[in-house]
């Protein structure tokens, strides 16, 4: 019954979306506003329909109707209630339904916003947006139907994939999805601008906050994914250059390039074509990313959701790419810019260098991620590209990017004289060099680490100086330090929010260098009461307990006392979780965290036959918490940059042509 309601709602949503596309097309072709209004209502109507479908699925999961294949696949009688709800995105068909719900939400929000100047875009926004929705609805309704039934009613279900039973997994996928879908909105508006021929920066101003919010969610998804890997996957790391991680990193990279280069268009009315290219690229990478995540074409730790929807995805991406390329080439004359670069040393040039480096990183990640498929075509063997290959190729580029991040804010629009730049850089260079020398004297001998630390501290110093200069300038006008600083942020949200984000990246950079270069580890079998030492830490093995957890889980939990410099600091419990139904084991680490390092312990093996001995793996991860702290700073910065500014909203209402709005930077 519930399944029928859900499926019915899904099919109606498909029909309604189809209607929206057609009505918007006819409306704009025959200039009939009534059709467009109707298409708009239809687009909004998809949301309640998909909410109905989604809640039907949640209902089915909650009551445990195992006659529905999806419910049988991802839940069981013992699945805790909260996980029954999150099982909605725990498998292929359900996550497509969830994707559809979120996308309908975004489209409805875009429809319900106040339409001003850009009303002209509406029919095209509906056409492109609903067409994308239509594709995903079609997949959901006809190919990966989440409400499909089994021929019989099994007494119990399979249960959720063990990887997905961690709290991190409850929020990580929705964040990524929100980020992915969020980037579809600026693409839709970009296409609307192309088709309508209204190619000023209206579409960019309209979607600026959408882009930032999408970027925020994608960043959150990436950071939470890293934390999840660190807490659950038990390899002592946070990023493994796994195909699915890369699939979400790639749109993030092109989105980052886009966020920077749109500023050139707003400020200097240049690179319209380039921005179009970047947003189209981001859209294609988003769809491709969903495709990789959902189909597991490239094997990965995330391949709990494989299926045969590959050809459809591929066809859709190809179609949308050709469609976009057609419109870009049709409008290429209007897109070519009338303004020119004044100097190679200017803010706009710096943004372009940034774009170049980011795109180089993107191209390399792209090749490496798809290399297994490429090598299968060439040599008939599925090659594998491990993290070390990525790190060798990308480390120098990330270094250049961080340098640019520090120096670019010192450049000005139009042109900066070399003397002026030298003057601003002289003392920071000297100070950073002294700092690096100090690190060398203190015992850091790795050349890679020294170069990395020089770059990161240099960028840190320059970014902090930006804040300092701004605050001091305001203090000179009679504000106290705190007022000056907070006003600086509040009045120039985009600029200083951006620098704040840069600080987050820099702090993460320190963490990454610490972990990548100075990680230590050891593995040893301990009898009860024996200990192992690593760095200044010692751990004593005090016994193991095995007990039944929720669902089909068997938990083997060790008790370990951690000592630092001989003094007891914490008792930790590294565990092995075995899901007996699938016989899938997971090693869940436990750790003692401080700002300078984590002592991270895995229980590798324990056999009941040898009751009082167990094998442990211990990692010393220096600076790892800087990665997470940097992530928090990063997110705060994005919020500062994206937060609505009431003063500017006012301006916008009073001025029909708000050229002043672009003046944030």
């Amino acid at each position, binding site marked *: 019954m519930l399944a029928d309601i859900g499926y019915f709602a899904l099919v109606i949503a498909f029909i309604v979306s189809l209607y929206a596309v057609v009505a918007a097309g006819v409306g704009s072709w025959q200039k009939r506003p009534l059709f467009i209004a109707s298409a708009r209502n239809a687009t909004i109507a998809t949301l309640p329909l998909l909410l109905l479908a989604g809640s039907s699925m949640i209902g089915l999961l909650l009551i445990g109707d195992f006659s529905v294949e999806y419910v049988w696949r991802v839940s069981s009688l013992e699945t805790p209630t909260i996980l029954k709800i999150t099982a909605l995105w725990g498998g292929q068909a359900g996550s497509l339904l969830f994707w559809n719900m979120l996308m309908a939400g975004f489209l409805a929000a875009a429809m319900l916003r106040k339409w001003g100047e850009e009303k002209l875009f509406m029919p095209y926004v509906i056409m492109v947006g609903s067409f994308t929705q239509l594709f995903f609805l079609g997949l959901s309704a006809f190919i990966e139907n989440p409400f499909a039934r089994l021929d019989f009613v099994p007494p119990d279900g399979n249960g959720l994939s063990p990887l997905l039973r961690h709290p991190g997994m409850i929020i990580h996928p929705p964040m990524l999805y929100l980020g992915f879908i969020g980037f579809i909105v600026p693409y839709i508006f970009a296409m609307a601008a192309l088709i309508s021929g209204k190619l000023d920066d209206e579409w960019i101003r309209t979607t600026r906050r959408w882009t930032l919010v999408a970027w925020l969610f994608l960043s959150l998804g990436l950071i939470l994914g890293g934390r999840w890997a660190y807490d659950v996957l038990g*390899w002592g790391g946070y990023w493994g250059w796994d195909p699915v991680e890369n699939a979400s990193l790639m749109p993030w990279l092109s989105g980052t390039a886009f966020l920077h280069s749109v500023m050139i268009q707003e400020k200097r009315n240049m690179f319209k074509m380039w921005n179009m290219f970047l947003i189209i690229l981001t859209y294609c990478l988003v769809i491709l990313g969903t495709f990789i995540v959902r189909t597991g074409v490239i*094997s990965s730790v995330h391949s709990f959701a494989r299926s045969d929807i590959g050809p459809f995805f591929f066809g859709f991406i190809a179609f949308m790419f050709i469609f976009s390329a057609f419109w870009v080439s049709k409008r290429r004359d209007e897109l070519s810019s009338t303004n020119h*670069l004044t100097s190679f040393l200017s803010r706009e040039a710096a943004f372009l260098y940034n774009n170049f480096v980011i795109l180089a990183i993107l191209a390399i990640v792209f090749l490496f991620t798809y290399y297994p498929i490429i090598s299968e075509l060439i040599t008939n063997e599925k090659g*594998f590209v491990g993290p070390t290959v990525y790190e060798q190729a990308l480390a120098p580029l990330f270094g250049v990017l961080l340098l640019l991040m520090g120096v670019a804010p010192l450049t*000005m629009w139009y042109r900066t004289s070399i003397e002026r730049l030298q003057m601003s850089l002289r003392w920071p260079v000297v100070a950073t060099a002294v700092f690096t020398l100090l690190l060398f004297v203190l015992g850091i001998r790795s050349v890679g680490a020294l170069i990395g630390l020089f770059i990161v501290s240099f960028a840190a110093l320059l970014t902090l100086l930006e804040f300092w200069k701004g605050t001091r300038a305001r203090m*000179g006008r009679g504000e106290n330090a705190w007022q000056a600083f907070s006003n600086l942020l509040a009045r120039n949200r985009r600029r200083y929010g951006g620098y704040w984000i840069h600080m987050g990246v820099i702090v993460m950079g320190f963490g990454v260098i610490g972990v990548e270069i100075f990680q230590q580890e050891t593995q040893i079998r301990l009898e009860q009461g024996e200990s192992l030492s690593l760095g200044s830490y010692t751990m004593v093995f005090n016994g193991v307990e095995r007990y039944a957890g929720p669902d089909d889980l068997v938990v083997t939990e060790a008790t370990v006392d951690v000592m630092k410099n001989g003094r007891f600091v914490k008792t930790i419990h590294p565990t092995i979780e075995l899901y007996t139904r699938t016989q899938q*084991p997971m090693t869940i680490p436990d750790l003692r965290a401080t700002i300078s390092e984590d002592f991270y312990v895995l229980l590798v*093996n324990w056999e009941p036959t040898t009751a009082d001995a167990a094998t442990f793996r211990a990692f010393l991860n220096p600076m790892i918490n800087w990665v997470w702290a940097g992530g928090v700073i990063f997110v705060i910065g994005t919020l500062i940059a994206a937060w609505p500014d009431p003063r500017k909203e006012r301006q916008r209402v009073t001025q029909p042509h708000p050229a002043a709005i672009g003046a944030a930077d």
Partner: protein
Amino acid sequence: MKQTLFLTRIMPPYTLRSTITAIGILLLLLLAQTAVAQQPVTDDQVNEVAKGLYCPVCESTPLDVCPTQACIDWRAQIRDLLSQGQTEEQIQAYFARQFGDGVLAEPPRRGANLILWFFPVVAVVVGGFFFSRYLRGLKLQQPAPVAEPGQRQETAVLPPTQAPQSDYIARIEAELRRES
């Protein structure tokens, strides 16, 4: 003694001495080798080798941390091979022969795989070439730097003699003026 004499007859004494020394060193080395082999292989040694391998079943999880039974068996095999005195390279080559190059964390640097090392360099160099040509093209068409009307004046070109600090403060002060 006679034999020694015989030997001294066919080769000069210093050569004889060094030959004996060489044989002695070789024997010592062999002894040392077996001594090492007889020592139990530590988990750290196993992990060092396992880090370079990915089992084909649980791809994307490095072998040294993978908890599945298949990977535990692989690690036991690595331990065996290490105790037989095989080197890291030999063991990795062994697994690559058995299961294909896909098990190696770093694909062997030959054939099509060389793309992985050449592409990043080529991409940056060739991309950089076209990028700089594009930039130059953008700049050449420019007759003279003119601040456009409608742009914020404080960001327009300032004489390079002016110190950056005062320029910066001017920018912020202009913002402050706008606010009040």
